[in-house]
Structures are given as C-alpha cells and as structure tokens.
C-alpha cells in the first residue's frame, strides 16, 4: 500500500475527530493533528484504535507516541502493515 493510499484513507479515519474539514481535505505529511486540525489530545487514542481496526494491526504505546502529525501516522501504519506480511 502506497503512502498516498494510506493518506487518503487516513482522512476518513481522522474525519470524525476534527471540525476543521477544509484543512482536513488538504492535509500533508507536515499537518499536526493537535495544532493544525485542532484535535482534542484525548481523541488521539480513538484515532489509533480506529486505525488498528481498519488495518487489523496493533499499535503499541511507543509507536503511538510517534503519531503526532500525518507523516508519522503514515510511517507507523506502513511499518505495522509490513510487519503483518
């Protein structure tokens, strides 16, 4: 799965947790989940749980800590997807 494919799916995963839909449409690797998308820090957990369910992966505590912007989210998801294979 390419980074572009994950990015496009990630938008759907993040969508319920941000009211800033305009910015969500144009996110890139640098977009910060809390600062730019104004996501409540408690909701990061929900995004991780939803991503786990979507890709049937398990994101451990250390990996989850890295998921602060869109780029690192994609990094972690692709890494976990590779481990699965």
């Amino acid at each position, binding site marked *: 799965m390419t980074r572009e494919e994950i990015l496009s799916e990630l938008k759907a995963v993040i969508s*319920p947790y941000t*009211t800033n839909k305009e910015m969500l449409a144009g996110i890139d690797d640098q977009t910060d989940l809390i600062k730019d998308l104004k996501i409540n820090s408690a909701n990061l*957990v*929900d995004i991780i*749980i939803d991503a786990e369910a979507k890709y049937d992966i398990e994101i451990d505590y250390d990996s989850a800590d890295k998921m602060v912007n869109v780029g690192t989210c994609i990094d972690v998801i692709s890494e976990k997807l590779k481990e699965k294979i």
Partner: protein
Amino acid sequence: MSKRVVVTGMGIVSPNGIGIPAFLHAIQNGISGIKFMPRYQELNFSCQVAGMPAFDWESLKNKNYISEVTFHGLKGTNIGYGVAAALDAWADSGMAYETDEPRWETGCVFGNSIADTEAMKNVIARVDNKEARKLGSRVVEQAMNSGVTSYVSGRLGLGNKVLTNSAACATGTQAILMGYEYVKHGYAKRMLVGSAEHVDTYVYGAFDSMRVLSRKYNDAPEKASRPMSITAGGFVPGSGSAALILEDLDYALERGARIYAEVLGGSSNSGGQRQGGTMTAANSTGVIRCIHEAMATSGVSADQIDLISGHLTATNADRQEIQNWTEALNRAGDDFPLTNSLKSMIGHSLSAAGSIETVASILQIVHGFVHPNINFEDPNPEITNLVSLDKLPVKMIKKEVNIVAKANFGFGDVNSCLILSKYK
C-alpha cells in the same frame, strides 16, 4: 445581603412534549406520554409501559447543541436529554451559546441518579473479553456521575460552581434549591439547574422486581399511571430532563431578561429513616418539617398556597402524602389547595421528576391554569375522605396561580420542597 432569585429560562425533554410550547400544550390538554414498550415485553417485565421522550438523537448535532466531534461517540442517553434541555433553557433566557472567556458569574447544579447503564454494556463486554485497550477516550466522561454537568458546563463555558447532585427522586427539586441558595447568598449571579434521567432496561428491571410498577395496563398504556386513584397499582417509569436558568433579580433586570417566576425559597431534609421512615418509605415527620421549613424560608403562610404540585407517584404512598400535606398546611377538605400530579401524564422520571414538574409549575403560574390529573375517574376514598374531590381537578382549570408548593420525596427518606411565586 440576600438576593431575590428569578427564573429567566426553561428547557424540557418530556415524554409528552419536547420544548416548552409542546410541553405546555400537552399539560393543558392532559396528553399522556406513556407508551407500550415491546422490548419490555420481550424481557418478561411485569410492567411493559414507560414514558419515553420522542427525542431525535441526531438533533444534538443537527441543531448545534454539540459539535459533530462531540456527537461522535456520545452514547449516554441521559447526557443527550440533559444537554438539550440545558441549552434550550439557556437560549430561552436570551443568551448565546458561544463564549471565548469562561462565564465566571454562572454555575451549574445538574442532578441525575445513575449514568446510562445500557450504554455501558459495551464497556463491560469489552473488558470481560480482555479488550479494555479498545474502549477509547469517551467512556469515562459518560460513565462518571458528573457526565451531564460536564457536557453542559463545557458547552456553555460555565465558570462558577459546577456540581452534580443525587438524591433519588428528590434530585431535581434539590438541584433547583441548591442553585437558588448560591444565587440568594451572592456566590453566583446565575445558575443553570436541572436534572436528567434515562431509565434504562437494567434500572427498570430492578424496579420491576420490587413490584412497585404499574402492571395491569400494558394494553392501555395511557391509563397506566393513576395517581390517587383506587386502581393506582404502582408507578410508570419515565425518562427526560428539564433545566432552568436562575438569576439574581437585579442582574436579570439589568440585561433586560424576561422573568417567568420567582423562587421564594425551599428546604431539603431527610427523615433519617426513623419514625416509620425507611430506605423506601418517608418519615411523615420529616416530610412535614420539610414543607414547614420551605414555607418559613419563603415567608409564605399555608393559606397563601394556591397549588400543590405533588410527588404522587401512583403507589400506596399517595394517601400518606396527601395526609402529610393536610397536616403540614393545616388545611383539609374544602380548604385544601388545588393539587395535581404531572406523573399521571408522564410517569415518574425519578431524578428528572422534580425539574420537569417545576417547569410545569412555573408554566401554570405564567399562563394562569391548573393542569388536570388524568386517569382519576376512580378516586381512592381514603384520599377523598381527607380532601374535597374538586381540589383534585380532572379538567384544566383556568385561574390565577400565585404560589405553588412543589415537593418530591425519594428513596433514602430524602425530601425537597420549593416555593415558587408569580414575579411581582
């Protein structure tokens, strides 16, 4: 220096009407909100009817009560009811939802008896299935007793005292009394008060097992709640919420707020589960003291009371309640005040009963009427021996109502009584 406290806004989610205009229409016309519940039949409950508001869950998001993000993951029915009633009351009071600064002058007392257990079922299943890590961030805020208060105060930026009370069926009146006391003593300029209840199947089932619910009218739901009648065979559980905005009179006048009524005073006490009082029965001495104290703090004498909005749940406690009122007011027979029970129309919504019935009381003051007692075609003679039948109206009476005594009594032998007045 004690302040006068007035009501400047009201919101309601009731089994027989959502929003003040619908609710007013329902109580003037004796419209029942009790419905047959197919699910309760499947569960083999003896009582299979309930007062359940026809609440549009999506309206929480669509009508801007809460954001889409907050809506996503909201499961607690009581929270939905409470937020809708509280925000409606706020808007009714002529104020905007949005604020950047906390509203330091405004606090909140909102009560409930239990969080939505049905919504927690998924939590229990996940934990038992060793999947606690999948629960997510939204469970704790909805499971905590202060769930409703937290959602309401967060949405409106309330920055004064924010607390959650719980006193079983006396919760709603007690919440209003507490808010009244904070404003009266100058601790807050404004208090958003009320209560919310969702009687989920688990709580309902536990009451069913106590054999205190109406069980003979499953095929005629609208007749199931029969306070003061000879066929009163138990109460009908109800759900809903009501909220009121209480304000320091001067503060309300300064901003040109519309004033519905004045809270003159009230009392909350317990019978101590002594002298006949138990976990589930009221000590009459405690009840009478509570009513006396409410009148004393309000500066109102018994002969000034135009209307009693009773607790009157449709159990065998109704007769004792009427007797307690006759002793507390020293008024009986033809001299007894007009008395009604909203529960005849909507059932007993436990913690929410007090706030819903207070809104009904204030509407009767504002619009000059006494709502009917429905399902009262067969009065209990032990009650009509104490008070004249025409004091328990079965049709709406149009008349000026100046002072209402609103009381509720709850498990744990707790009592609350408010004295409400036309604003003059």
